[in-house]
């Protein structure tokens, strides 16, 4: 039993191990030059160097902080906006097209404008990431609110509930599972936008780390950075966002019916 369980846990690592073996095989077997590809051993050495000198931690901390701040602001702005749009049939219809249009303009496409407005600063990066994150949050909050049966609201109004009261007692709990799905999607898009923005803005963060390493052809560092980006995303998603999602879906999803 224990062994079977441990195997199941480890199973997700098998493709990674296979990829590393393949990578190693290509690098040493074909003899790819160090200017094109670093070997797993070289990457490990670079990792140990960057980790022990605190470089990796510093750049990673910047990225995590940025995504955290962006997520908090997007949530704080996006949820009320989603409520406002979702509770107003006319606004919902009017804004649906606009939201789709904005979904088509990726956050990165805003970088040139944002750089002209705010220069090469964290503000610029935040604009891009918040923009990316907020659209799915607004969209899913709106969808969640619109799926709430009208009778919930009507019944509360005849119990004398104020608008705020209805938001707190009906719209928020009713739309929560959907809001969390939006947040999770947004975090995925936002993380990618963040790394891309960091490469251009160059004010720290893992995107800055890998783009800076390119200047000196430090392929090993680029690869360390890329792996860190992937791992951190898994960590943020698996340890933070996914548990919130399954908690709300397990609890509120059942409670919805």
């Amino acid at each position, binding site marked *: 039993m224990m062994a079977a369980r441990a195997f199941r846990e480890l199973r997700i690592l098998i493709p990674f191990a296979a990829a590393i073996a393949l990578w190693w095989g290509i690098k040493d077997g074909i003899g790819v030059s160090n200017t094109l590809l670093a070997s797993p051993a070289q990457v490990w050495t670079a990792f140990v160097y960057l980790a022990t000198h605190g470089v990796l931690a510093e750049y990673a901390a910047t990225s995590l902080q940025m995504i955290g701040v962006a997520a908090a602001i997007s949530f704080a702005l996006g949820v009320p906006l989603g409520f406002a749009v979702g509770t107003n049939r006319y606004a919902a219809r009017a804004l649906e097209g606009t939201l789709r249009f904005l979904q088509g303009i990726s956050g990165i496409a805003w970088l040139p404008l944002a750089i002209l407005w705010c220069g090469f600063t964290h503000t610029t990066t935040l604009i891009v990431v918040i923009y990316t994150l907020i659209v799915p949050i607004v969209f899913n909050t709106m969808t969640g609110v619109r799926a709430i049966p009208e009778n919930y609201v*009507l019944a509360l109004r*005849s119990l004398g509930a104020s608008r705020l009261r209805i938001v707190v007692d009906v719209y928020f709990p009713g739309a929560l599972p959907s809001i969390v799905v939006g947040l999770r999607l947004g975090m995925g898009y936002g993380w990618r936008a963040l790394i891309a923005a960091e490469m251009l803005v160059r004010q720290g963060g893992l995107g800055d780390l890998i783009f800076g390493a390119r200047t000196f052809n430090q392929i090993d560092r680029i690869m360390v950075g890329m792996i860190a980006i992937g791992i951190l995303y898994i960590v943020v998603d698996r340890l933070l966002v996914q548990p919130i999602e399954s908690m709300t879906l397990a609890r509120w999803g059942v409670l919805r019916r």
Partner: protein
Amino acid sequence: MASDKISVSGFRHFFPTEDGPVQATGTIDLAIREGEFVTLVGPSGCGKTTLLKAIAGFIAPSEGTILCDGKPVKGPGRERGVVFQELAILPWRTVRRNIAHGLEIAGASKAVRESTVARLVDLMGLAGFEDRYPHELSGGMRQRVAVARTWAADPEIILMDEPFAAVDAMTRLTLQEELGRLCATTGKTVFFITHSVDEAVFLADRVLVMTKRPGTIKAVLEVPRHGSGGRDWDSFTADPEMRNISEQVMHLVHAERGAR
């Protein structure tokens, strides 16, 4: 007509849609006295819900006026409680917190909330389920909670829109008797919509029959009460007078089905 609790005059409603306005009701006049239990039967789509929603203040009438205690209805209010057919109580609140919701909104103290919940849970046969969520209850119990929630807020008028239509037939009989008893003891003014003739007559002091869409009120029948307290199904079905009234209502309703 100072004693009219609710008075509807010249009411007519149209819903705006993309293909222009849709007429939901014909012209309706009605008055409900304080403490009276009035039921409304009519074919589906004739405008019963529309009328109830207008009295509740959820929709503004296209034409006519609605007075509650002589004052025009301008929106929903705590003096007019509503019970819907389904999807009314909140799935993320326990039975206790659903029932106490109106009191919570009104800012009642915890002691008041708890004693009210205890009383209604007892009255509605929900004892032992106070901390359950709606999805853990049967449809009949959920409707009991909806009724209890409305009663707990203590409105003077209660508007009910086919509250037992989605409940199984056996449970429905019990709920109807319980509702009759509850109303007789609390003296509320009730406006109750149904498409079941038996239910309409069983509960009512007065039955209104509507025509098919766009509905108007085509007949009004008084249902006399003998003694105080609610009716029970056994004596109701054995009473020839009641059977007679039911048959009259049945004919009126069937005529609407036949007419086109």
